[in-house]
């Protein structure tokens, strides 16, 4: 069982015992039966059509993505022979050169490797339903994905992941954590989530100068306990107190597992490395948030999206290789979500504007690899001229909420059949 850290801290009498505490936690049974979900938000609306390309519709794909002769390096349509190298079928065991159904974008070599493990689900044609009256807005689409609701307007509901974990005892650090430096709606509940701006090694109080550093620390501690003069100040004070409580645990976990050889070529790698360290340290956190920006590719898409996709796949591989080296991959599931897909046709900036259906990836030992959902037609579009959404995003969330031990119906407002990927 997971030790309730807050209680243990109290009984041991404070921070001085933390190294021993972490040691003891390592020795206890881990969260073997509890799914840990890592959500990677691809901010801006990832172009699903240039992420997973439907090979039988290649002719239409090429025409849609070639509005004119592109400037050097800005061609959006990948050549068929390049796609064949990363081709895949619904059956993950089919090798690339024999596959005929789909292909990852050529830079996604790492993602193709993940698919070959049989633990990567590709959710095709996923997105917001037409009933969302403004699904092409970043704001609405992000709110929808983060809350599991549609048409929520100006209301501030809880995030679906936070709601799923609201009754979970995640230990003293709480059940959720954001590595993005702020609190995404996804993990909001009435409890304060742990937020870290990586690297986690620097999570702590940094003191100013004084004649006596010890005295400054003492007064700081005393001041942090003086009731603030306003309600807002008291809210700020509550966050500060939570942070001060978390410091000892986070720092102990950081010292315990330094992940010295973790490759860090991207900001996403920094975020996933520290998520991995918290998982390896048995922090008790069950829901993590990381993000990767830059997917709002209205112009010169070929100069940015391929790099982002390569970085994404490699970051997930780095994360799992690290967790595997510590033998803690069993419960960990990673999913990618994004605001929306892009329009089928490219514009004359050789970019793509806001659209509808996209793709999501779900990876983990519990995941049954393959392709789920029906890839949208590149000939017949939805009433707005966009790729038709064949898998409602709430259906994907429903399966994940169930996998985490939650009840999706009250969170999502309705019941969805299982897609079967987990």
């Amino acid at each position, binding site marked *: 069982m997971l030790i309730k850290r807050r209680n243990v801290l109290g009984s041991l009498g404070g921070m001085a015992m933390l190294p021993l505490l972490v040691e003891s936690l390592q020795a206890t049974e881990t969260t073997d039966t509890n799914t840990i979900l890592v959500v990677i938000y691809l901010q801006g609306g990832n172009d699903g059509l240039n992420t997973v390309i439907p090979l039988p519709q290649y002719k239409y794909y090429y025409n849609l993505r070639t509005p004119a002769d592109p400037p050097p390096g800005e061609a959006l349509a990948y050549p068929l022979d390049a796609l064949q190298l990363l081709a895949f079928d619904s059956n993950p065991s089919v090798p690339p050169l024999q596959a005929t159904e789909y292909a990852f974008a050529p830079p996604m070599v790492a993602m193709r490797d993940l698919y070959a493990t049989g633990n990567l689900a590709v959710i095709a044609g996923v997105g917001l339903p037409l009933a969302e009256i403004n699904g092409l807005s970043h704001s609405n689409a992000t709110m929808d994905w983060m809350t599991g609701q549609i048409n929520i307007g100006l209301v501030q509901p809880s995030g679906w992941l936070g709601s799923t974990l609201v009754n979970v005892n995640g230990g003293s650090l709480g059940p959720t954590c954001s590595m993005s430096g702020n609190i995404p709606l996804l993990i909001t509940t009435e409890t304060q*989530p742990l937020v870290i701006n990586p690297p986690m090694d620097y999570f702590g109080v940094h003191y100013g100068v004084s004649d006596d550093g010890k005295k400054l620390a003492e007064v700081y501690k005393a001041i942090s306990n003086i009731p603030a003069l306003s309600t807002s100040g008291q809210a700020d004070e509550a966050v500060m107190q939570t942070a001060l409580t978390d410091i000892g645990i986070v720092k102990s976990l950081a010292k315990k597992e330094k992940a010295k050889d973790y490759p860090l070529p991207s900001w996403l790698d920094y975020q996933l490395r520290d998520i991995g360290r918290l998982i390896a340290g048995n922090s008790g956190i069950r829901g993590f948030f990381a993000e990767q920006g830059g997917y709002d590719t209205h112009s010169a898409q070929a100069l940015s999206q391929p790099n982002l996709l390569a970085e994404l796949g490699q970051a997930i591989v780095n994360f799992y290789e690290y967790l595997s080296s510590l033998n803690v991959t069993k419960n960990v599931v990673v999913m990618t979500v994004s605001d929306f897909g892009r329009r089928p046709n490219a514009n004359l900036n050789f970019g793509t504007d806001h659209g509808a259906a996209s793709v999501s990836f779900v990876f983990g030992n519990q995941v049954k690899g393959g392709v789920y959902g029906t890839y949208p037609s590149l000939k017949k579009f939805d009433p707005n001229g966009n790729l038709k959404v064949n898998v409602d995003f709430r259906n994907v969330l429903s399966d994940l909420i169930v996998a985490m031990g939650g009840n999706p119906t009250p969170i999502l407002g309705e019941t969805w059949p299982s897609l079967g990927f987990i």
Partner: protein
Amino acid sequence: MGRQLSGFLVAAALGCWLAPLPKAVAAAPTTALTRAEVQHMLRRFSFSAPPQTVTSVLAQGEAAWLASQDNWQALDDSGSELETLPTQLVNGGYPDYNIFERAVYQHMILTPRQLQAKLELHWLDHFAVGLQTVGDPAVMYHYDQTIRANALGNFATLLEAIANEPAMMIWLSNNYNYCPSPNENFARESMQLYSTGIYQLNSDGSIKMKGTTPLLNYTQDDVKNIARAMAGYNVYFDPNNNDPQTRFSVQYYPQTNCGPIKYFGKTQNIPTDGTSLTYVMAQLAYRPSVAPFEVTELLQRFVTETPPAQYISDITAVWQATKYAPDQIAQVINAIVNHPLFNTYYRSMDKQPAELVFGALRQIPTVMQATANVTPGSSLLYELSNLSQQLFWPPTVFSFYRPGYLSQLTNTGSVLDRTGVFANITNAQQSGAYTDTYIDVPALRTLIGSTEGSAIAAYLLDAFLDGGSPTLQSKLSGFLGKTPDDNQVLGGIWLLLNSPDYAVN
């Protein structure tokens, strides 16, 4: 303390520490102001002010201060530019990002045109544009100058000017936007983010509904056709031209293959002389939802994240009545300050990171200097970056947070990060190789007229915390002792800057 989420408490934060007297809308207050009311107003509509300025405004009245700020051209700003802009923006043939950013931050701290500077920050958030896409600080400098010049002016004029800025064209892809396959990016965001918002609004900010369905301000077809209407603009760069004023230019190519352009239910007669952007923006600026949309956002940034319907409605009426006035925005700000509800939001919302840093440096004697090499180290760039609000590097089109979600920036990570930022600021020394900003403790003692710890404590508490609680006063005085040395004073400043009450506006 448990893991309580601050946002839920903030939403309930209508109670106030002092009981302010109500004021009449759009009229100078007839009752005496309290010092705390003046400090409240100066926190919201300037980057805070030192105690002596508070005393001065208390004596002259808020109306007089606002009037002087509205007439910003009359305020001598010559000492606020420490860099020689724009000539330094291209340094040896390469764009110099650091000089540009540091110059803007220093200006926001030093300028006597504080209301303009605060509105500059607001419009930089509202019309967020990022150097990561724009690429050249000379282009961004031009953009910032346009925002600053129009910050207290007329909204339609501001919107038209922004749309024609090369930085905006590059950021939202109206650069190289051609018919017949136009780029929809700017068309969509010019409505959703910059003028009308998504939903049709009543004058009190509530959403207009048809049954249970919100009414939209535009359709997808409107987006497509407005994109066509605004096609044909190109920004040209000459990277070999080291003159920051001429290395970019905008050219217009009339589009002949757009077909009939119909939006908002009408076929439009779009000009083909290079004024189509101005033409479309002039239409958008006066759409019915613009007033409550813009007013709500102004209230969310300057007063409360959850403005009540009556406040929105009252200010919307002022917006509409002044919509053709050249000083429309200044008049709206005056109405916001003079509204009976303004003072009830005393200390009711979090500070933005920029407000935390700039406010700290404005309230005590600080030395700022132009240096050629400022990163890494004790520089304003570094501190804003540490707090995730480098003003010209917004992460999304929503800038650093969406209006109404400011409390998401206050979290376990950020409250610890700011201890580091204030440590950097208080640790910075004149002799530091990379220091562009440091606190001048001898000047602080001279200003206070005393070396006594109790006098210094009283001054700092007045500056940062409107006096603070007796318990805090006692703790700080105890820390400073009878005659604190420089390091003790800096330690005391660090303590107050990290107190929860300093973090709220």
